[in-house]
């Protein structure tokens, strides 16, 4: 039985840019927590955030949380990034491709990163996962397995150039992204 109740979330609003540090979108930035990190495959993650009218959300901010190439969290690689959406509603992260992560029981999770979207008009953030198309482990990933097949594609990034992966996030309506909660 809990003693307390979690604080109510409130929207991040339009002025969260006061705490914006654009360099946080580059997890490998010089002088940053992963400066000099040379393991794994360097990648760019990008995507467009759109609303129920298909309009872009240039005021939105996307946060990333991921394991390192060895599939471990915060063990030699600091897996946090934050990217504002640009005028086209697109986020951009520079990072390394995560490895497969241990799942519940004896399961193995396919390589994935968590993306959370915060924006004016979102009373609380919404979170999803980005998987990489073509990964054999996607077929047996327990979380992907929970997502109805028809909507699974909303979690799977496509290659969009050398080392570039793209996953658009649709907040509402046709092609709506599958969001996850615990």
């Amino acid at each position, binding site marked *: 039985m809990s003693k307390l109740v979690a604080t109510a979330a409130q929207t991040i609003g339009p002025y969260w840019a006061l705490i914006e540090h654009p360099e946080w979108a580059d997890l490998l930035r010089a002088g940053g927590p992963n400066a000099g990190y040379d393991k794994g495959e360097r990648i760019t993650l990008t995507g467009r955030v759109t609303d129920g009218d298909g309009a872009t959300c240039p005021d939105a901010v996307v946060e990333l949380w991921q394991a390192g190439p060895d599939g471990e969290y915060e063990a030699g690689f600091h897996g946090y990034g934050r990217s504002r959406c640009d005028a086209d509603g697109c986020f951009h992260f520079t990072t390394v491709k995560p490895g497969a992560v241990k*799942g519940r029981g004896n399961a193995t999770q396919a390589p994935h990163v968590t993306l959370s979207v915060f924006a004016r008009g979102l009373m609380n953030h919404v979170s999803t996962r980005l998987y990489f198309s073509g990964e054999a482990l996607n077929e047996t990933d327990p979380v992907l397995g929970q997502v109805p097949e028809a909507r699974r594609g909303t979690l799977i990034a496509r290659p969009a150039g050398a080392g570039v992966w793209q996953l658009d996030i649709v907040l509402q309506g046709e092609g*709506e992204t599958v969001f996850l909660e615990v």
Partner: protein
Amino acid sequence: MSDPAGYLKVAPGSQPPLDSPGYGSTHKRHPKQAPIRIAPTLTESLAPRMTERDYPSFADMSVHEGRQAQGERIIVGGRVLDENGKPVPHCMVEIWQACSTGRYHHPLDTHDAPMDPNFKGEGRVFTDADGNYSFVSIKPGAYPWRNHRNAWRPNHIHYSLFGHGFAQRLVTQMYFPGDPLLALDPVFNATPDVAARNRLVAALDMDIGKEEWALGYRFDFVLRGRDATPMENPQ
């Protein structure tokens, strides 16, 4: 290694629904489909480790480059706990707010009120080993926001907290006691449970304030807690 414990279910009415009709911007931005509930894996149970080395703290927002901001100086302090009442130590708290006239130090804010050049409006602090935090700032002003006829946001401070599990991530706003605009604010009133909503209002606290220097306000944060009972299959 055993599986990560689940999180306590969200108490009914304690969180604002994503579809909050009084707040116009939610209309086209709230997902229509329910989220899929998953059992927490390492991904949801761990969290980025923020340290002051990589994310330096700046706890006095009332001074910018040695110059004092205008307005009513305040000290805000309190604790960060989880739902089981356990303190959350070394938790990064990001803070941002408008200046005393209700203007954000940002080009997007075109509200016709004088911008205080000595108030940038960003702060960052970490809780200590017992979950305590505090910072110095200026009481923010109310500002208009076009949501409905003559809409004004009550005085508020924005916060972003990183707990010890990604599922504990919290972005919220703190309000001030006795503000008549609270009754009219669709963001504040979106949380259905009255007690949960009122917990977003700080308490005047003369022990936190400093004599002849600043008024004090107490505000505690509660992050989601783990369920001690074994996780049922969420499917």
